[in-house]
């Protein structure tokens, strides 16, 4: 069975600062994908960033980057230069075929 754990229910960051959200996972598969999704208060889940497990290079999307440690089964999200619009629930997810597992989420607050 695949599982995803987000150990930080809530995090806060000062505007323009950097914050890292943690995620660990467990899977017996060798081929899988990892995701960070963002769910703002309006509720639409938006893909933030995606990482293919076979790629060693960490994915980056503008101010968002990941630290993918395959051996440790860790997949953290770093948000640089945090903005007020980054405030949301963030979900870490693991997918293999049609099986996608989500963590419980981390609520990020951005302080002006």
């Amino acid at each position, binding site marked *: 069975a695949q599982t995803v754990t987000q150990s930080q229910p809530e995090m806060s960051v000062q505007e323009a600062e950097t914050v890292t959200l943690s995620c660990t996972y467990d899977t017996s598969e060798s081929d899988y994908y990892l995701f960070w999704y963002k769910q703002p208060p309006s509720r639409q889940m938006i893909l933030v960033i995606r990482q293919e497990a076979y790629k060693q290079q960490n994915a980056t999307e503008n101010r968002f980057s990941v630290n993918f440690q395959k051996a440790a089964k860790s997949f953290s999200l770093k948000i640089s230069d945090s903005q007020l619009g980054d405030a949301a629930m963030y979900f870490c997810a693991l997918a*293999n075929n049609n099986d996608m597992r989500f963590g419980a*989420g981390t609520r990020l607050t951005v302080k002006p």
Partner: protein
Amino acid sequence: DVKVTQSSRYLVKRTGEKVFLECVQDMDHENMFWYRQDPGLGLRLIYFSYDVKMKEKGDIPEGYSVSREKKERFSLILESASTNQTSMYLCASKQSGVGGLETQYFGPGTRLLVL
């Protein structure tokens, strides 16, 4: 851009009512999913469909059924709503094959309250 829409943003029903939640996607995706989102539990899969008229149970199918008569539309049915089905329901769709990179695209969600 992929667009996934859900028929209602908010819904209030009474215990025992039959409830239909509809989801439509416009990207010709083969796979569609229904999740339930509860605080502290993340998203849990209720059912998914990998083709028209095909369905597979997820982790929490009890009390739910689904229908997929057309490729773009996936309906979630609560045969007899109960208060423990009060929740946020999210629909998602995904392209088949490695080209889709396993990415699911989500609708805006339906917040259902069962009284």
